[in-house]
């Protein structure tokens, strides 16, 4: 495909997909190691009520209030899960299951009750996202990348997810040591005087931020898949945390690119006319990568497990 078509139609969705995948995969590494992988699942469910409440309060589909609403809902869910776990003495998985399903049901109910028929806000959209529609209309080809006028017309989602990813990398770099220490040996980290609880909460909040920014562009399926699959696959490849994060970024990029290409062009190669869901395809690709890593990765077994 020539640059004249590729740049306006495919470049920006592809970039957004890749950036969103990486932004979710980086905190996902720590969540998977801490056995909190399903926090990502919970967060991406409660984003829906947050967005609906923000819409009901402002009456408009605007990005900032919706992002704030989603982030607020994510933090509220984390607090509620912790409250239910402590007050009711319930195991964390069940507490999570109680809260996120109830909040999601509340979101669906609010959506049905409010008059949202005039605006583009529905459950399917929240789940699948609209990656394919994030096109760059002002572009005329590769030269547009140097044209300030055309650059001004870039979809705002691209800039937001890029900024989020940048902030995420910065935070990860700054807090690398405390994060790694508290992830692998919480008791030791505590004896060093690190605020372990605060680090854990911070990680969850940062993950929520990444989830919300990515959700805005690509929907919640990719968010859950990218929180878990690339880090899990990377876990099979190495025993070193730094290498694991690098592998997970590579896997996230690979799933996003392959998924986007197969979703857009795969059906054409098979003789069908229409593209399939890019978000779903990216999640599927990450699953295939995970299965491959789990079958052939050099560090796929538990330490001490029989090797035969």
């Amino acid at each position: 495909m020539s640059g004249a078509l590729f740049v306006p139609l495919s470049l920006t969705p592809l970039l957004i997909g890749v950036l969103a995948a990486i932004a979710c995969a980086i905190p996902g590494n720590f969540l998977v190691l801490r056995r909190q992988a399903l926090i990502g699942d919970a967060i991406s469910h409660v984003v829906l009520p947050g967005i609906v409440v923000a819409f009901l309060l402002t009456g408009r589909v605007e990005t900032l209030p919706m992002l704030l609403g989603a982030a607020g809902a994510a933090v509220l869910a984390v607090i509620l899960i912790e409250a239910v776990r402590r007050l009711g003495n319930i195991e964390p998985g069940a507490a999570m299951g109680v809260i996120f399903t109830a909040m999601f049901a509340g979101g669906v109910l609010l959506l049905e009750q409010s008059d949202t028929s005039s605006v583009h806000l529905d459950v399917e959209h929240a789940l699948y996202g609209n990656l394919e529609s994030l096109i760059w209309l002002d572009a005329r080809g590769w030269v547009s990348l140097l044209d300030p006028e055309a650059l001004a017309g870039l979809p705002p989602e691209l800039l937001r997810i890029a900024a989020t990813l940048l902030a995420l990398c910065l935070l990860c770099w700054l807090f690398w040591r405390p994060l790694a220490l508290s992830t692998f040996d919480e008791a030791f980290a505590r004896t060093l005087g690190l605020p372990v609880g605060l680090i854990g909460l911070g990680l969850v909040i940062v993950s929520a931020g990444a989830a919300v920014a990515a959700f805005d562009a690509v929907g919640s399926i990719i968010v859950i898949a990218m929180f878990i699959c690339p880090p899990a696959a990377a876990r099979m490849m190495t025993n070193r945390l730094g290498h694991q994060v690098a592998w997970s970024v590579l896997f996230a990029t690979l799933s996003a690119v392959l998924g986007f290409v197969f979703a857009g062009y795969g059906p054409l190669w098979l003789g069908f006319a229409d593209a399939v869901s890019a978000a779903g395809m990216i999640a599927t690709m990450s699953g295939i990568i995970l299965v491959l890593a789990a079958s052939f990765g050099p560090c796929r077994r538990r330490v001490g497990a029989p090797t035969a």
Partner: protein
Amino acid sequence: MLWHALSLQLGYNATLVAIGATLLGLSCGAAGTFLFLRKRALVSDAISHATLPGVAIAFLVMVALGGDGRWLPGLLIGSALSAWAGLWVLNRFVARTRLSEDAAIGAVLSVFFGFGVVLLTVIQSLGTGRQAGLEGFLLGSTAGMLYQDALIIAGGGVLTLLALLLIRRPMLAVSFDPDYAAARGVPVARVDMAMMVLVMCVTVVGLKIVGLILIVALLIIPSVTARFWSEQADRVVLLAAAAGGLSGYVGAAISASAPNLPTGPIIVLVSFALFVLSLLLAPGRGVLASVLGQMAFRREVHLRQGLLALAQNQPVYEPLTRRLLRRAGLTRADGVATEAGQAQAAKALRDEARWQIARADPAHDSIAVLYDGLRAIETVLTPDQIAEIDRRIGAPQAVTP
């Protein structure tokens, strides 16, 4: 209107939905309890999301064979097969790789669901209008429920309940202590599998009413609710079934009583309301009960310390202690002990002395650990033993006010 709905007088469809939802809630509550007690509640999340590709593939196969594609039994069989595949992958990940169960759940859930969405878009591109109804499996759609569908749901629910009844003993044993169960000769892996298959069955049955995203709620919330009310596993299962059934019934009735009230979410919210009530009000494990218990404990400690202070002629400054002593009629307003107060103070001091002897004596080793400063010594020693201790302390002494 709500009353009409609750008494099943809102017409044929509403009645069908209410009966179906009640049965579904019953079987979900019962099946989910075993999962919850086994601490694998969120496995249901993976199972339910893994049904989506099966639904889509079943639709595609039925269309390819020239059928309608929306025949419910076929869709349910497809969803069961793909849920089974998801479960198999999940178990392989946990058994063969270093992934922990939560990461494996998340991976199966998101990848199967993503693949299902890809297939849904394939179906959409096949022809307009024909896919109508499949999106209903995401959040449930009861509007067009047929008599046949209701029969399938009811039949599935009843069969699941029967199966639960038959294998509840081994399942409970495995839930509480898998190692002990294995030592007793219970085939743990197979019982675990049976548990998962039962959960899979109720999930598949519930797809039509509450949808695959919210069925998790019906599996988890009633069992967590029931756990507040009983410490006995059998009763927890029954209570969970009751909570699930009640949520299904009331939820279906509420949703039939007004427009724009989708059945699935309402059922989930009703069951969440039951959960919140239990969290707050349940005796023993509820928040209110533990707050009251804590307050009672605090009063007891303050009274005891106050009495000991009175007995030793020490002034009491702590306002709560003073108030409690005065209210119990043990001191006068100026803080001086009354007759009854003197008697109880002497008794408290004497008990303390008795405890000291008892704790120092190796013969009373086993009761020494029970000492917490509040326990009355009569509840752990016989009158003979106390008399023996008293002999060592000497005669009672008067308290001078």
